[in-house]
């Protein structure tokens, strides 16, 4: 696990054109996530990842960030159908090139005496954190671009990953520099 080996992994994979990001503002009401998920399954659209959280202090609205597999249906059709849901207030479409995307991963890795320092070093190289330490396990955390998380996850597979949880992406539009 040398830095040279790491450098061989492309830092920023070209985002797959199959995927598009929808930033969906919804009313924060019971069942709304189920309405969105149900729409995707009954119309045969594929969700690649999905993240949801309230957006404002009074929690009237939530934002659902959905990464859509646009090979299963034209993006336009997905948006039009979503827009018909009464609880969906607005839909923003973000192409990967015009968005900042972040994701977080938590992973618990079984480590012997030799692996322990290797994993800690790997986490350091990626700019992650060790968030919990056990006698023979470490739980590590990394937040970053989804591609970076992919790379990190790929390298962790050289060790014994006991549990791994990704959040799914959240995204906002890139700011104009001018």
């Amino acid at each position, binding site marked *: 696990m040398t830095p040279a080996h790491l450098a061989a992994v492309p830092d920023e994979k070209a985002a797959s054109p199959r995927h598009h990001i929808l930033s969906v503002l919804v009313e924060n009401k019971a069942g709304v996530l189920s309405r969105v998920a149900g729409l995707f399954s009954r119309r045969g659209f594929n969700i690649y990842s999905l993240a949801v959280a309230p957006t404002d202090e009074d929690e009237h609205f939530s934002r659902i960030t959905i990464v859509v597999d646009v090979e299963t249906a*034209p993006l336009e059709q997905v948006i039009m159908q979503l827009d018909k849901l*009464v609880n969906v207030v607005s839909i923003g479409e973000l192409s990967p090139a015009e968005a900042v995307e972040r994701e977080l991963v938590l992973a618990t890795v079984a480590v012997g005496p030799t692996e322990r320092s290797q994993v800690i070093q790997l986490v350091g190289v990626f700019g992650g954190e060790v968030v919990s330490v056990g006698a023979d396990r470490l739980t590590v955390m990394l937040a970053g671009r989804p591609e970076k998380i992919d790379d990190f996850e790929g390298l962790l597979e050289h060790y014994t990953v006991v549990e791994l949880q990704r959040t799914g992406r959240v995204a906002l539009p890139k700011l104009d520099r001018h």
Partner: protein
Amino acid sequence: MQLTGAQALIKSLEMQGVDVMFGLPGGAILPVYDPIIDSSIRHILVRHEQGAGHMAEGYAMVTGKPGVAMVTSGPGATNIVTPLANAYMDSTPLIVISGQVATGSIGTDAFQECDITGVTMGITKHNWLIKEVQDIPRVVAAAFHVATTGRPGPVLIDLPKDIANAPMEWYWPTSVEELDLPGYHPVTDGDPVLVAQAADLIGAAHRPVLYVGGGVLKARAAEALRALAERTGIPVVTTLMARGAFPDSHPQALGMPGMHGHYTAVTALQRSDLLISLGARFDDRVTGKISAFAPEAKIIHVDIDPAELGKVRRPDVGIAGDCRLVIEELLTAMTARGDAPVVRDLAPWWAQIHQWQEKFPLYYDHAEGGAIKPQNVVEQLRDAAPEDCIVVGGVGQHQMWASQYWEFNHPYTWVNSGGAGTMGFAVPASIGAKVGRPDRTVWAIDGDGCFQMTAQELVTATAEQIPVKIAILNNAYLGMVRQWQEMFYGERYSEVYLSPDLPDYVKWAEAMGCVGIRAETPEDVGPAIEKANSIDDRPVVVDFRTDAFEKVFPMVAAGQSNDDIVVHPDQAARAR
């Protein structure tokens, strides 16, 4: 003014102008049935909740007003799932109110508990589970607003029993803003730039067709459509959901397209170079194999639901808007062009169309076998009926014959289950239609298989003095399935035989308080119809024992191109 939730619900329905509702009480909805005694709303007690839903649909389809049905929790609610699915497919405004177990019991598998908002999420335009008694008037107003605006559709309000019993301070929302629908903005007007592009395409077409769907009826656009058709001289096809939107007696009417459509309607769409689709959705039963559908046609697609534009076929000009408003905009755009012709010379196109009409009219062999021909029953019913008679179809062969052989000259005179294909629709839907239009004659044209699914609602009709007329085209089979097994499964008939006389339909009708009539030979048909038409104080059921082997033609087999339309064998032989 303080009311209980139940009183507030009924008062809200009254505020919405509801004059009739269909339902059946039970445990969880009991509190709401008490204030019905004191209400101006007529409640019609059904014998099965599915009947309540279809009656409300029939009522909505002939009046244009939303139909209202009320049921209890659990099985009461699940029994009305089929009407909700049916109304969703056919964009019928339907309001269903279901009782629910008390809020404290939700999630405990309580007696007659069912997560009906979860069950109906995919088959309602929206649904609500009311958790605060104060929300009742607002939710009822929102439910009516959602059901009746934009693309109409069914909604469901689930009301827990403790909320119905709780006290609340009465109010009534007076503006759309108070309905708390921040994500609901139905479109109405069409984009004028796109309307102008549509007018350009119409002006350039050599073989245009107006492809008219149910949206024209929902938009109350039949008059506007007629003006557009007559202004342009373009031929018109009306889909199964749009029968009556344009008069069949009009020289520009080509009839119905689709799997069992008129040969000329199907073929005109196929050979067209411009389809002007108004409130239609390119359903697979119309298009046949989609990749082979109208291959040379450009598409103007007008629909109030933007998601329909490009869902199946990408339009050249897609206009999201109300059909009536868009047609009127189109006519205005044409008028603004002054003396310039709005269309090319369509005479060659009409010459071609007239050839098809002459060669392949609707056809059946009147004499073959000596049995009553189902098509002939429809023709005789039609000829004996008043001009504005409402016809209600079930689902199957009889439905296709009714849609083919009736002459629909007025909007809202044809009620049937199109998208969902719900067998058993006709009896309850005809009752709802008669309740909505008591001044009209209502004939249901039903099949024997369909009739057996929901016939018990004739008890409701008798008890409530709703004199509908039911014609059973009794061929002793699940006829459409039998036809497919004959044509596509090598005549291997699997589980399609019913029986001509089990049950005895006349006795059954009489047991339900109806007049029962039987017609066994072609000579019996006329007198049976005459007798049925003379009765208007109770429901009538006529059992027409029809030829079991008759098939529906023309036919485009499922998944085939419309180019491969199959006509009656006699016609095919003559054409060779």
